[in-house]
């Protein structure tokens, strides 16, 4: 297996990327082929990510499976360095899972199927890339690659929402999402440039996270510099993580996107932002992080409450889920901002847990929409009568999101609270209140849409398809599994978090 | 003497130029241009650049003005009388004066140290032109060729046109 050890990280980027390229050459008139092919690719990705997660030696810790290829030599010095640590390993696994789920669920894509899977696999490759690289250039490269397909994925295969008084078109949402994420990334880019210039003045110019990390650890990066650069990363990555007040792309974008894309985007892509804050902001700019964390945790708390309160008065099923993502990403941001091993660990676990949970929710909402062609919760009602499994899964996902013990969300949120409690007591209490608010809108949604007397209009609806059942079932099992026995996840995360500076 | 000539020729040069840009009649403008260009040739003479003066008169006086006059006649149309300045002429004046101001200031602030006036030898000029400057010279010939071909292609009317 040593050869796999050498190449696993490289493969996990290249497999979906090559998959995307090869998909282009599939016959156009047989859309099913693209689907089967994408399934094959994502199964391989899932196996690879499982391998990476399982083979990560949490006893040894640190970065493992490291590999480095030179890309550009001096004077610019860019290497494609790959490695995985306790923070990225669970996220790689998450992406493997959600990617396969998203591909499977995209069976319903009927127009330009081939193009869809090309873009979807490129998206997957970008996300994997961000999680495995240790070089700022490539981090940014894959970060952008992950954003790139979003415009078309939403614009072409998405759906518009009619609010009566106004229309949120998919084009608008796609454009907003795309520009917003790119706008965030320009801050990141500027930050990266600043770091590079800084490293040049300190000796060797470098993009290597390892070298920059060593510079930071040696204290040669001045606090003043860190303090002005950190907000670039915080806001830049924060945009992708849905940081308030830069979150509005998220509900609109998620709602407009087709199901599989919503799953990937809300499930995985938003985590790139939080991951970036940890990997770049915290590691390279520990003192800057310390100075800015009070603001971040405040904004995170606002996210939690604001997202939850906004979700309460949404009438569109998917918007509720969209705003709930905003709210839940608030816990991630809060956890990060605690700079506390438990809090940050909670944030990482929340990334994983929310990824699965929100993917599941979007899957189920998508299933409803596919059948009923409407998402208005005042119109949909009593779906339980026809869509038992679907409703049941939704209930599980909803319960996970409101922090029901026994499901993964509880462990994660609880850890975030714990971390925040020690550092920012009042905000922690507000966050707990936020969790209670989550219950309000989730139960409201459940009650309105899935429970109650069924309207005869919905007689024709069918329950989840086998594919939906399978994907949803696996996600439910994961939610419960992590909720009941988080140790396999936590022991990896703990190692990763412990090695972060400033904790 | 040279002062007198200089002032006279300068006056003619600038006056001719003003005539070109101010007159309402296009043909007059061409004639003013001729005046100005010939006066410039005179200035070259003061500067002891006889060859250039010659070239100036031949090419400008002999060729360019003629071509311009042809063009004026070919394009003569009913609206020539009302052709004069466009609406932005005051702005144009200000801009031109502004540039003039900057250039004059640049020339006058710290004038270049100069030596005696001298006249380069024809032979030296020719030698330099065909040795050291051979490549630009050849390229210039291509420029003329291109202009020629272009003028023919563009101005020639062919059957398909109408």
């Amino acid at each position, binding site marked *: 297996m040593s050869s796999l050890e050498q190449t696993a990280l490289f493969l996990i980027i290249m497999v979906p990327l090559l998959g995307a390229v090869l998909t282009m050459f599939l016959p156009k008139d047989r859309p099913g082929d693209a689907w089967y092919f994408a399934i094959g690719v994502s199964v391989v990705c899932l196996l690879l990510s499982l391998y990476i997660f399982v083979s990560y030696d949490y006893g040894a810790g640190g970065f493992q499976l490291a590999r480095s290829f030179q890309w550009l030599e001096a004077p610019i010095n860019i290497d494609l360095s790959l490695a995985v640590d306790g923070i990225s390993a669970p996220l790689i696994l998450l992406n493997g899972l959600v990617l396969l789920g998203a591909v499977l669920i995209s069976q319903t894509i009927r127009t330009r199927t081939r193009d869809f899977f090309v873009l979807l696999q490129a998206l997957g490759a970008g996300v994997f890339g961000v999680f495995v690289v240790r070089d700022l250039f490539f981090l940014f490269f894959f970060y952008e690659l992950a954003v790139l397909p979003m415009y078309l994925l939403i614009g072409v295969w998405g759906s518009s929402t009619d609010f009566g008084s106004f229309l949120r078109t998919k084009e608008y949402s796609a454009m907003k999402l795309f*520009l917003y994420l790119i706008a965030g990334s320009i801050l990141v880019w500027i930050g990266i440039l600043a770091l590079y210039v800084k490293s040049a003045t300190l000796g060797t110019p470098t993009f290597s996270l390892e070298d920059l990390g060593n510079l930071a650890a040696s204290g040669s990066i001045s606090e003043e510099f860190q303090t002005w650069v950190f907000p670039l990363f915080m806001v830049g990555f924060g945009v992708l993580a849905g940081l308030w007040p830069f979150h509005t792309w998220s509900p609109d974008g998620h709602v407009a996107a087709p199901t599989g894309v919503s799953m990937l985007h809300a499930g995985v892509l938003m985590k790139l932002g939080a991951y970036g804050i940890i990997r770049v902001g915290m590691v390279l700019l520990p003192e800057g992080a310390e100075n800015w964390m009070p603001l971040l945790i405040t904004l995170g708390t606002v996210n939690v409450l604001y997202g939850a309160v906004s979700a309460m008065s949404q009438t569109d099923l998917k918007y509720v889920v969209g705003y709930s993502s905003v709210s839940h990403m608030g816990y991630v941001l809060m956890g990060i901002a605690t700079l506390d091993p438990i809090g940050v660990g909670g944030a990482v676990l929340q990334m994983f847990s929310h990824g699965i949970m929100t993917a599941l929710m979007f899957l189920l909402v998508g299933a409803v929409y596919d059948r009923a062609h409407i998402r208005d919760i005042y119109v949909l009602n009593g779906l339980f009568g026809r869509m038992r499994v679907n409703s049941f899964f939704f209930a599980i996902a909803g319960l996970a999101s409101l922090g029901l013990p026994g499901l993964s969300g509880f462990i994660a949120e609880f850890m975030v609270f714990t971390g925040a409690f020690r550092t920012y007591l009042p905000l922690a209490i507000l966050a707990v209140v936020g969790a209670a608010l989550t219950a309000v809108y989730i139960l409201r949604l459940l009650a309105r849409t899935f429970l109650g007397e069924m309207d005869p209009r919905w007689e024709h609806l069918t329950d989840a398809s086998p594919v939906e059942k399978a994907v949803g079932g696996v996600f439910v099992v994961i939610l419960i599994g992590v909720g009941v026995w988080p140790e396999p996840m936590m022991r990896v995360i703990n190692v990763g978090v412990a090695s972060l500076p400033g904790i | 003497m040279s002062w007198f000539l200089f002032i006279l020729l300068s006056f003619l040069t600038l006056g001719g130029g003003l005539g070109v840009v101010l007159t309402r009649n296009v043909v007059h403008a061409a004639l003013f241009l001729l005046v100005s260009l010939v006066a410039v040739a005179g200035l070259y003479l003061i500067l002891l650049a006889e060859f250039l003066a010659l070239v100036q008169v031949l090419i400008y006086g002999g060729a360019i003005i003629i071509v311009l006059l042809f063009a004026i006649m070919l394009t003569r149309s009913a609206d020539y009388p009302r052709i004069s300045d466009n609406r932005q002429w005051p702005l144009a004046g200000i801009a031109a004066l502004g540039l003039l101001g900057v250039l004059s200031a640049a020339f006058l602030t710290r004038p270049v140290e100069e030596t005696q006036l001298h006249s380069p030898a024809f032979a030296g000029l020719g030698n330099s032109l065909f040795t050291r400057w051979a490549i630009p010279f050849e*390229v210039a010939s*291509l420029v003329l060729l291109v202009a020629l*071909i272009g003028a023919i292609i563009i101005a020639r009317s062919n059957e398909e046109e109408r």
Partner: protein
Amino acid sequence: MPELTQNIGLLSPEFALAGLALGILAIDLFLPDGKKQVTPWLSAAGLAGIIALSLYMLWGRQETLYGGLLAVDAFSLFFKVFFLGLGILIIFTSMEYVDRRLDNPGEFYGLLLLSILGMNVMAQSRELLTAYIALELLSFCLYVMAAYAKGEPKSNEAGLKYILIGAFSSAILLYGVSMIYSSVGVTRFADISLALGSAGDVSPALWAGLALLVVGLGFKVSAVPFHMWAPDVYEGAPLPVTAYLAIGSKAAAFALILRLVAEGFVPAEDLWSQWQIIFAVLAAVTMLVGNLVALAQTNLKRLMAYSSIGHVGFLLAGIAALAPSSVLASNGVMLYLVGYSITNLLVFAAIIAFFNLTGREEIVDLAGLADRQPFLAACIAIGFFSLGGLPIFAGFAIKFYLFVAVATGGFLWLAGLAIFASLISIYYYLKVIRQMYIEPVPEYVAAGSEREDGIVYEPEQNLSPSFLMLGVLAISMLAVVLAGVYPAPLLDLIEAASQAILPGA
């Protein structure tokens, strides 16, 4: 001057190219009307041969000819091969268009070849007059080519605006040259840098002269505020010419600027450190205006014009960041030029192919292209994503490299502004992509044949771009991806070129 003849072999590519051009013009005269299609093939083959010749004759040579007028070095070789290669591709993209829509095809290719000659000389000239005259050769060819569709008012107008503004700007440039000459008495870049280095007591006319010189060059690359001709000319000129303007002429002008600045200005370190900010300001204004105005465009060619203005801003930022001790900025500019050129070639080739099929060039005409011509749509989309600076395409790598160079050169704010301008640019690129991928196929296309130019074609669905076009598209798409994924070999060449003009680094 014995060195004149000894090394004449070093100019053999230029002579060959001039010969080729004149030969094409001559052959064309004798070809019967039906056989004129051979001229482009001959030209392309000739260019290929000249590339081989250049590489054979000039590889590894580092010499100065004619007492410092021309340089034969890695820099000029790099651009020479680049321009020649570009020429081949431009010829291929033009063929169908020229064949169908323009008169005098033979002269068209002849002029194209002459303009390439002008570009080559520009890249190797180390003296103001030589540079100027080469520039004029290029410009004259372009003036003619812009007005080539002489039946079309827009083309006439483009030609007129171009030549008048061009002549005006060359007058300004020449006045600058004359001021430089009258202050320090020299015109060679190296001498200028020497004079600048020892300029204790120099006339301010020198400064004004340099400014006027930069205005002339700024016009050529269409830097704001000398850019306004560009959209009109791009829009009015025949499409292949527009492509050529956007790619070739810009690259050549930047080659000249690079050498001028690197050899003429940068060695005078004190003054250059003062002047960098001027270029930076120019760059900032250019990138902002170009990208902002592009937001409001509805015509594809015009959009590309403003977009190219925006890119000029980025390139100027790279120029501003040139430094005597580092080749990073110069590498950045050259890499950007190459990446930008191949990307633009991809986009333009696709637009030309589309135009050949439909005779349309407004953005809305692209509606539903992803369904009508998926490959073309993909090419344009990839090109636009690349121009917008998104990865795996060339645009990302080159932008990243260039902005790193700009930031390292002490202009972090400018790099930041450039990144912001890129963001703006993405909006209008996406607008086009939206037309192609999201909007439905317009009814008139589905219905059949009504075309703007009145020429009746078969229904478009049955058409596909010519194989030649597809070939160009495929090649440039591969190049765009390759340059985005693995630019290292390219950078090796660029590095050598940079060393040639910045020996101090």
